[in-house]
């Protein structure tokens, strides 16, 4: 495309059978503590991490 660049293509549709497993981090376990930062998290299935703050 000449005028428009696609930076991310439908990332919310990138779902699998574990959809709604809720194995990912609870937001307040992260570095926030005073706001909800689900958008700043990662999917535990797609990107498992050893220590859970990211």
């Amino acid at each position, binding site marked *: *495309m*000449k*005028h*428009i*660049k*696609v*930076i*991310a*293509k*439908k*990332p*919310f*549709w*990138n*779902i699998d059978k574990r*959809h*709604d497993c*809720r*194995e*990912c*981090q*609870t*937001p*307040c*376990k*992260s*570095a*926030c*503590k*005073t*706001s*909800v*930062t*689900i*958008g*700043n*998290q*990662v*999917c*535990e299935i*797609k*990107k498992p*991490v*050893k*220590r*859970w*703050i*990211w």
Partner: protein
Amino acid sequence: MIDRSDKTSVHLFTFNGERFALDVNSGSLLNFDKPSFYFLSEFLNSGSIDLARQGIKEKFNIDTEEIEKEFETLVEQGILFSKPIPYFESNLTLKSICLNVAHSCNFACTYCFAKKGSYGDSESLMTPENAKAAIDFLVKNSEGKGALEVDFFGGEPLLAFNTVKKTIKYAKISYPDKKWRFTITTNGSLLTPDKEQFLYENDVSIVLSLDGNKETNDRFRVLKNGQGTFDFVFPKINEVAIHRKKSEGYYVRGTYTKETLEISKIAMDLRNMGFKFISLEPVVTKDKIGITKEDLPKLKMEYEKLAKEYVESQKEEKWKFFHFNLDLEAGPCVQKRVNGCGAGVEYVAVSPNGDIFPCHQFDGIKETKLGDIFTGITNKKLQDKFRRANYLFNKEECKDCWARFYCSGGCLANNYNMNGDILKPYQIGCEIQKMRIEAALYVQYKSMELSPFRTSA
């Protein structure tokens, strides 16, 4: 031709001179040149394709055919003006607790929501027995959950390090089939190499509180005699950062206020001190240091400045600013995004005496007590209220907000503390969230520009 049936499904914004559209329902992110951005803006504002065509001819003297074709392709592919993914209210189950092991603190930070550590009550520490009972309560009530989370919080949780240590050992030995995730939030003052070694070996993530350089930090983070804490804690926090240099097991977390809005400088100061994982959050208070509407333009400028400096500095050495962590490929699923933080249901806080509150920020607010770890949840009516409040679409003001899939309806504690109602969003918090999301999207775009093979055409 493109259908503008749902204007709220596309969020147009500019950031540091770049032009973007976020397709709200699919999460697609697009970057535009000037004519295409102008065309879409005109189309969204006027609702008339003819007016958009006319406007672009007058302003840029070009034909819109090519641009319109690009838009049509994006709409056909479900990248723009997409329809929502099916989602529903999750059946939340407990999986995470905050153990408030210390209703006591050796600091007296002036903005502390925990009333300088005591939560408005007499000072106390959690006994190992109560902590173990809390672990039993968590396991008993989290059927089907593989990973369980425990956050040691306070006050200053290292005042009860013996309890912390025994709790971790107890959880691992008593329930070896569970995947345990531990975190601790500390001011760092009581850290020793031995304690850090224990925490590291047990995969405990650490959130270290530090507001910036000495001048910034010591403005609010003080000892009980009013003395600043920077000189005292910096060497200890620095030691943890060096020890964990290559892991993602720590964050240095600062609080900013109306009097310390210069977050770009604060973050860069922390980065220049050598920290690689940094987070800054706004204070949430009705006091005079709380962020108000008048502060938002300055804050927006600060985010723009920080985002620019962040991208530039990545070329020298990688570091992370928590607000800019926005993984466009491996972010949470939509179900997670519409079902909130889980406060009161999936996540609860336990005070030293075993009382259960919806989250760490509700600890000590007697009317929000849910029960205790010995008898379980007794205030089912209140828990049901929290259950409902966790679902994004039960909050009227969030239903059409473009940021809804990133903040998931916001912080229920902030809503309660600022508006007296967990269902009523804290508007200043919403505005700050929107800024940080736009900044994070800009950072993602710029980062991908540096790695062009990751973009799709």
